[in-house]
């Protein structure tokens, strides 16, 4: 796994690339946005880790440039940013980034996000028909979810949404994306429908830290189903 890491702060770059190398990633650090963009265009990287604010080309400008040049061959992009305001985060996600991490970075969170993103690239989750999360078991083939040995009664759309979320644990999924995937056959679905279904799943499947889960709403922009590290 090759990671292009754009960060202009030398100390942070050294620390973070240390974590990444220790986790087995192949990291190349860049201080300049233009240089980074050039490298990603010419060589093959699997994941880009971009800082938002860099002196010459900002992370977003690099992202925009790469999207034009690489199109479908675009690697996964995760933003690290000191700005956690809603409009900034939503703007990054709308611009096409796969996820974001608010600074200061934590090692566990960074590795978890990278794992989720690369898992999608390897196409692992989709291949598994059955997932066993301890108290929760998901059977994709039968479209059944079992919680504490009890079959959970879900509506059709709730099931669709739940199965898709379990396939994409740790990924930021925008509401628009979820509508396309889950409600593809239903016209005129508004984003509130997604919220209602997400709330419903949260309640019925106990997607809370007590059960080892977190269903995070990203400022109303989308959802990310996360595995909580320390379940009760």
């Amino acid at each position, binding site marked *: 796994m090759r990671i292009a890491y754009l960060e202009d702060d030398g100390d942070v770059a050294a620390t973070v690339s240390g974590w990444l190398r220790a986790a087995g990633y192949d990291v190349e650090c860049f201080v300049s946005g233009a240089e980074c963009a050039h490298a990603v265009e010419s060589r093959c990287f699997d994941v880009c880790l971009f800082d938002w604010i860099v002196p010459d080309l900002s992370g977003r400008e690099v992202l925009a440039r790469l999207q034009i040049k690489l199109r479908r061959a675009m690697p996964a992009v995760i933003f690290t940013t000191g700005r956690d*305001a809603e409009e900034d985060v939503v703007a990054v996600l709308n611009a096409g980034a796969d996820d974001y991490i608010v600074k200061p970075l934590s090692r566990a969170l960074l590795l978890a996000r990278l794992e989720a993103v690369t898992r999608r690239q390897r196409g692992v989750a989709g291949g598994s028909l059955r997932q066993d999360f301890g108290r929760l078991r998901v059977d994709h083939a039968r479209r059944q979810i079992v919680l504490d040995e009890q079959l959970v009664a879900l509506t059709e759309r709730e099931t669709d949404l739940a199965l898709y979320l379990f396939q994409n644990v740790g990924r930021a999924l925008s509401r628009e994306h979820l509508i396309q995937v889950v*409600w593809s056959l239903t016209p005129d679905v508004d984003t509130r429908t997604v919220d*209602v279904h997400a*709330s419903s799943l949260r309640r019925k499947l106990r997607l809370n*830290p007590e059960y080892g889960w977190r269903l995070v*709403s990203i*400022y109303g922009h989308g959802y990310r189903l996360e595995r909580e590290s320390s379940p009760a």
Partner: protein
Amino acid sequence: MFGPLAVTRYLRSEALRVALLLALIAVSISGSGLLVRIDHLIFDVGQRLNRRAVPGDVLIIAIDEDSLDRLGRWPWPRDQHARLLQALCASRPAAIAVDIAFSEPSSDPLADAVLAKALADCGNVVLPLVIEATRVGGQLLESPPIPRLAAVAVGIGRTAVRLDEDGIARAVDLREGVGAATWPLLAEEALRVARQLPAQANAIAAPVTPLVARHELLRDQSRRIEFVGPPGTVPRLSYVNLLEGQIASAVFADKIVLVGATAIGLGDFLPTPVSALGQPMPGVEVLANILISMRDGRLISILPMAPTLLLAALLAGVPMLWLRRLMPLPGLLASSAWVLVLGAACALLPGVAQLWFAPAGALFAALFAFPLWSWRRLEAARRHLDQELRQLRAILPESQATQAFPAEIRRLDFEQRIAWVQAAQRSMQALEAQRNEALAFISHDLRTPLASAVSQLESPDGCAPENLLPSLRRALGMAQAFLWLARAEALERRQMKELELTAVLEQAADELYALARQRQVSLVRQLPEAPVWITGDFQSLERCAINLLHNALTYAPTGTQVSIGIDLPAAGEVTFWVANAGPPLSGEQVDRLFQRFSRGDQMAENPSGTGLGLYFVRTVAERHGGEAGVTCAAGTVRFWVRLAAAGVAANHSSP
């Protein structure tokens, strides 16, 4: 930009423009004679105010009612006049002017002869010449005395005065005549005979006779008369008394004697500036006034047109000298005073300097100076105000304005503009206060933990990293809390979106699950199954709930529980709350809790608190149009935030 300097410059050029406009007003008023009646009024007031001692050496022999009663109807036989003259001449007056027209021979040729002899004997009698228009055709005729009398008179002069537009006699022409302005005034002739003609009057230039206009009345050297007083001021003696020898002849020695009609029935009367219309002045007294004026060198010159216009234009601009410097009220007073002073000066000028300047144009312009200048100044103020408003609108954040700034400043009236500027000023003050708070925060709250960390690092025996962590965490927490607060203060309702409140609270509870476990407090969610839609800001509401939960978890005793829940007390209203077991708070504590930089009494237990948490909650609630509060009952402390619901159907289930 329209800075203060630009305003000054603008007003300076504006002052010049206003002065020019005033000058234009003055010139056009003066030039057109539109307000000539105002001029007359001022002149007349001046004449009435101007009182002089009546000279005793000019006497009028009055053909009065008494004389008519006793001597019979007018006209009297000319030999009677001859007898009067003989009686007069005996006392050797300096000159005699007879204001009786002898332009036609009398029916008794002998009487004419007797009169002629009397005139010749006296040798100091002047006779009048009348210029009159014939009844038909309006042709002008000069009617001198009959040749026989004219031959023996030592002088012949006109008695005509000029009547102004309002029918009042103010002026005489020193020279006048048909075809050529050659005839002097009767008064001038009488003075010449009496050798009392002042030197400058002798030098009256011979008029240039134009070649054309042979039959027009030509006038030259117009002067205004200075009247010595109202009718009756010049001493009169009755004709009949003199004729009957009842007056001592010595009275007339070396005096100028004027003979003329004062009886109403004879009709020779003129309205004058010093006489009201009801009490006109006899022609002979007007003659006496002309004579006195001329002798004393007090005939009033009229400023010619060109200098009049120039002076009017200059005087019109005078108010600009002070209007630019004065505030409105002193400006108004000064301008009013200027009008009065100018009017008074022009009224008194003839009496002082024998010069008449028609001030109506300058006065009118002076009246206009203040309104015109005020208008321009208001206009300048308005522009400045608009400019300021535009700048304020550009620099002030929208959330600071209590109301949105109007898109179109042009449409506002003056008071509204001022109100806007005041509102903007309040916003500026609020911003200033915020800035000061930020400075206080950075200089104290943020610096203290950082400084403590640095001093630990600098200590010679070194320090373990875990000792640094608390103060650094505290600094970071402070900075974060301050940032959130700043963001909450900038929240605007129109940027808020529709969101589902239970999801927000679930997420906040998720966030604090770890802390709850660590403190061995159970976190209970009492959230409804149906979605609760509100309009709000996701991040700040989530942070609100987190702050409340964090607070509750901090103060809840170990082994108890902390609950988070939603109440729907009424339609359109949503309350979410966080409750923990704890001692009730005193009223004073409650008051202080939601203040900035406040902390509960257990501060010592919780040194990581920022003091901003509950203030943040309150700010967010208020920005959402709601409120935050705390209630204590039955050993439970419950913090709540009341918000407005989005007003949509709550059950929004879908396929």
